[in-house]
């Protein structure tokens, strides 16, 4: 199964009232469609660059999960119906950097930095390339 990165903008007022339940809703949705969650955390709470459906603030909830590709479409549809989710973006993550990104999400409390981390890049460097550059 493929690793996906899901970013959800949650309703800030609903999140302020009950943070646990609102966040739980996202993870429940993913598991409901047969996904296994690898990481799920608050990414940021920020003002939106432009208002969406009358909302000016949003909670950015970042998740990484494994799921069968066929279930993504019904998941997206369910997200549209859910009131708490203002907007969502689900991206397929390249298998080569999936582990590094998940680890980064689990560890990171600060703002995300340039990824992939050096460890991944080092293994990906073709030695012949370095020589030609010198």
């Amino acid at each position: 199964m493929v690793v996906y990165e899901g970013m959800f903008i949650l309703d800030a007022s609903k999140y302020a009232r009950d943070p646990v339940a609102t966040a739980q809703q996202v993870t429940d949705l993913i598991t409901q469609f047969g996904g296994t969650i690898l990481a799920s955390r608050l990414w940021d709470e920020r003002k939106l660059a432009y208002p969406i459906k009358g909302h000016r603030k949003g909670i950015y909830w970042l998740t990484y999960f494994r799921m069968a590709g066929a279930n993504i479409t019904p998941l997206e549809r369910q997200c549209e119906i859910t009131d708490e989710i203002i907007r969502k973006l689900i991206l397929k993550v390249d298998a080569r950097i999936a582990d590094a990104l998940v680890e980064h999400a689990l560890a990171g409390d600060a703002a995300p930095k340039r990824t992939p981390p050096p460890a991944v890049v080092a293994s990906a460097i073709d030695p012949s390339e370095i020589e030609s550059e010198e």
Partner: protein
Amino acid sequence: MPPPKSKFAKFAKKKAKPRLKVKRRDPIFIDGVRPRPMFVDYKDLELLGKLVNRQAKILGRRKSGCTAASQHAVTSAIKRARFMALLPFVGE
């Protein structure tokens, strides 16, 4: 004695100065090496902020210094960031 200046001397073509070739620095490359797979995170606003102008337009390759592959990744990252309201569609 120097030879007398020709009447048309001022029209003579100046020799073009040899330009120093400065290697373009790709902002996506890490230590001058192309990351594989090419990956630009749409959440990396610090980086993406430098690749748009005040009107929030995407900078061209001439300005950003990106290679074709990294410019392609930057463009899609900026568009994703716009969709998620991390960057404005229209700036000032």
